[in-house]
């Protein structure tokens, strides 16, 4: 197993960090939560952060916490789709396609919400689940999986996830479009 420092991974995947923090900011704005400070990227731990107002509204916290996961995953599939056919299907050495693969995979690798992102959700989940909020109910396995996946980052779970959606996403999309 190759151990690569987190800051080096952050530098290599900096577009993903920026997209992740931008997604937090976007959902804070959409859900009218005050944002006190944003760092889109820095060399350090964490590589980026958004300090925002907390709320007791579970849906708002869910969107702010999980937003980056969905936005990063969608952008990963989109950018990798531009590269998938030339590089993976046809083996054409096209520099622009390699650039888009890097961009897409770096965004996909930074899709996982951090444990910090999940803390706000974890606080509100029991009450929301009691009120049968479907988001809260599905959040139990999601939050559990996120904690496990964050632990599994040491065995490249983030890279595996990025590659999985960066390859399978475009593959499924392409086969669907190709009829």
């Amino acid at each position, binding site marked *: 197993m190759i151990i690569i420092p987190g800051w080096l991974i952050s530098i290599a995947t900096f577009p993903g960090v*920026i997209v992740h923090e*931008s997604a937090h*900011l976007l959902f*804070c*704005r959409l859900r*009218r*939560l*005050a*944002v*006190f400070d*944003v760092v*889109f990227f820095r060399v350090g731990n964490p590589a980026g952060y958004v300090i925002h*107002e*907390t709320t007791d509204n579970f849906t708002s916290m869910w969107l702010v916490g999980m937003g980056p996961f969905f936005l990063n995953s969608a952008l990963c599939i*989109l*950018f990798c789709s*531009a*590269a998938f*056919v*030339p590089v993976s*299907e*046809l*083996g*054409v*050495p*096209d520099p*622009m*396609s390699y650039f*888009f693969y890097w*961009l897409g995979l770096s965004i996909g690798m930074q899709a996982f919400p951090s444990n910090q992102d999940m803390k706000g959700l974890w606080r509100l989940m029991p009450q929301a689940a009691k009120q049968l909020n479907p988001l809260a109910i599905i959040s139990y396995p999601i939050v559990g999986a996120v904690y496990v996946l964050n632990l599994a980052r040491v065995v490249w779970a983030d890279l595996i996830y990025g590659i999985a959606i960066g390859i399978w996403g475009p593959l499924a999309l*392409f*086969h669907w*479009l*190709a*009829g």
Partner: protein
Amino acid sequence: MRHLKCSSCTKEFPAAQMFTVGGAVVCESCGDRLLEDAAAKHRKPEVTRVIDATICSRCKADNGETDFRIIGGAPFCPRCTERLYAYPFPLWLKASAAVSVLLLGFALWHDAPYFAAGAHLTRARRAMEAHDYKTAVTHFAEVLPVKPTEQDVILPAARAYLMTGDVAGAGAFLDLRSEYTDNDEFKSVNQFWSRANLALVEADSANKLVQANRTADAQRLMTKAARDYPEVPAFAVGALLIKGGDAFEHKDYDTFLTTSREARTLMPEEPRLIAGVASALAAKYAVTGNAAYRAEAESLLAVAETVAQRSAEDKTAYDEYAERIRHRLATRIVINGEEYNRRFRAKEASSP
């Protein structure tokens, strides 16, 4: 701005400059002293800054005696509050997003030929699974212009071309890579490629032997080519045509008719082979006068004419041989193409 009295020195200070140390409101210097005393007694009292809700925590605006709104535990003036709820996306981020969208648009436009080729590749693979090699080849032909290098594309494409008898087409794909991973698929296609090329050489030699009137050797070699490349019926047809041609020269029209029918069975949609049967039937009519032969020959000529409409080349060839066959049916004189040309077409060519 609010002022509070220090519980230790009793002097008054702006509230925003004061602290609570272990629950007591104190000024900064008293607070430092209390912390030193506590440290000497190995205690660590809780320290917090006193919040003056009349001072904006961001722009320090003073609201007199009226409290600002508390957000996230800190007071903010209306202007700063507005900014908190509409935290701006920086210009560099907007510019980067715009550039990324433009680049993505350019990439999608630039990759359009690859996407089209990819779609044809998917259809070609489906055709290969259905063993429909003709359809597969038409789709692989659309993949070739983007010059794929993926072995999983090249080898199936080469196989499809070889299955349809287009050795040159297979070669065009195989040339796209200089080296291959030596797996089962590669070994299989490589053997197929070798067999096909050997058969081509044998067929070429057989044609030369025909021209040298060494018909038996030509037929043997063409039969060998047909055995080496059984996937393509053209070589077996070639061997039958050599045999039939030899029979025609020896006026053995029964054998000529049998071999022509066998050849047509192998390639039923080939107009020249349909006309070949018509030619043999016309020869049989010429020597027997049996009208059944004539009727079948005319019927087959009509079929050949219909099928020949598919290409200009087939149409031109049809016009040439149909004239000779009709002459044979009309006159009951059997002459070969060379003699027909000498008697009738040379005159046309030389006439003004």
